[in-house]
């Protein structure tokens, strides 16, 4: 009865007691990918990826459309199961993590209830949920809309709600999959500010983007992938000054003013 294929066990279920902490104080866990591969219907999407994400820098994943950025993040987050290779956290223990998607999913209930729902799943006791949820909404500037129906929010507000929902869980690692792809400049700026604030609170940030300006603003290190392979993993200044590969150079040159 406990087994269910459609909803694989979320190995990363936030630990209840830890989710109550305001922010993780120790350095965030490192993610180690070893020869990671993922194929679907005979097509290789992620091919032999070995990368270590450690330190405290914000990691930006760059690469052309269809390079496998989204799939790589879903593998890291645990939404997809690798078909080859392995992935582990150091130190090895369940890691509190959250993910923000390109198209934010909001539940058809109030803004506040969207956040308390996540806290409920994380095992936070009922009496603490409201206050924690309000706190998170305040940090993303949505406290004033707490009782509003969430499906009436604008695109930018939805994404901030998704960020609040993630932040409320005090994640040690936060994945953001092109979170600003559908947003206007003001909303994009808000999302970037929030992502930096979450990072400042001690969370590891792993984010993909198509926007090179955004990558320049946010990146500590760059993982550049093309056709499912990691071509480069270097500090951001080096990547933008002198990309080490032809693929990256071509990718950067294609940038429009």
């Amino acid at each position, binding site marked *: 009865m406990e087994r*269910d*294929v*459609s*909803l*694989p*066990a*979320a190995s*990363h*279920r*936030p630990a209840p007691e830890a989710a109550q902490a305001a922010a993780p104080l120790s350095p965030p866990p490192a993610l180690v990918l070893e020869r990671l591969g993922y194929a679907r219907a005979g097509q290789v999407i992620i091919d032999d990826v070995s990368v270590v994400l450690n330190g405290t820098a914000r990691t930006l994943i760059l690469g052309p459309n269809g390079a496998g950025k989204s799939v790589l993040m*879903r593998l890291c*987050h645990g*939404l997809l199961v690798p078909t080859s290779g392995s992935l582990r956290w150091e130190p090895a223990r369940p890691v509190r993590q*959250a*993910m923000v*998607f390109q198209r934010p*999913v909001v*539940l*058809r*209930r109030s803004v506040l209830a969207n956040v308390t*729902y*996540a806290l409920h*799943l*994380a095992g936070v006791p009922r009496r603490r949920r409201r206050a924690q949820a309000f706190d998170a909404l305040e940090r993303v500037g949505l406290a004033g809309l707490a009782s509003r129906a969430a*499906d*009436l*929010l*604008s*695109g930018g507000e*939805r994404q901030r709600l*998704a960020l609040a*929902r993630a932040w409320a869980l005090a994640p040690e690692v936060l994945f953001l999959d092109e979170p600003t792809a559908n947003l206007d400049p003001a909303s994009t700026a808000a999302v970037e500010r929030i992502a930096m604030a979450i990072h400042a609170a001690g969370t590891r940030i792993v984010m993909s983007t198509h926007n090179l300006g955004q990558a320049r603003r946010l990146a500590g290190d760059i993982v550049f992938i093309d056709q499912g392979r990691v071509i480069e993993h270097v500090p951001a200044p080096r990547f933008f000054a002198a990309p080490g590969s032809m693929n990256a150079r071509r990718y950067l040159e294609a940038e429009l003013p």
Partner: protein
Amino acid sequence: MNDIGLALRQALSMLVTLDPSLVGVVLLSLQVSLGAVLIAAIAGAPLGAVLAICHFPGRRPLVVIFNALMGLPPVMVGLFVYVLLSRAGPLGPLGLLFTPRAMVIAQALLVWPIVVALSRQAVEDLWIEYAEALRSLGARWWHAVPTLLWDARHALITVLLAGFGRAIAEVGAVMIVGGNIDGVTRVMTTSIALETSKGNLAFAMALGFVLLALVVLLNALAFTIRQRTMPHGT
């Protein structure tokens, strides 16, 4: 032609004066069909949601079977329930045959596959949108089922209205298990059938109008709900 005109006038006067026997039949109809829909909803919607999101062996055949059972002939359901409840049947000792409860059971069985199949569809549509986000938050299927049912509530209301429309309008099942006993198990559809064959067109027509009005009302309600819950865009 004159007869029909007379019957029509009589029917209207019965409606206007709220003829007691007419009202009794209408109320029993509503009671039986609402009870049936309630039971079908409780037993059907969660099952529909589970079929929508859980992938277990045998799921596909189940989905096909429930889809097919949406078109179950009411007389078949009536026959099945009759056999169950008849004195020699397995549930005979309960003494339910020819009571309103037997009619509720029969209609619930008739509506149940409709609720299962249509709520599976509604939940499946929502699940496509929600799956990754819910799994990312650590939701297992037993979390996802109530969440999806609640978030699909508007669609589910139209599902229940469809089920109610089916129940209130069917005649075969209630006729067999209810027996159309005057004042006890006589509902709108069985009365219409009986009174028409007896030549009492006025009574049959009056009931026909009520039934028609109910069905139109239901569809208007379902339409309004669909309109209200159109995607708002972002």
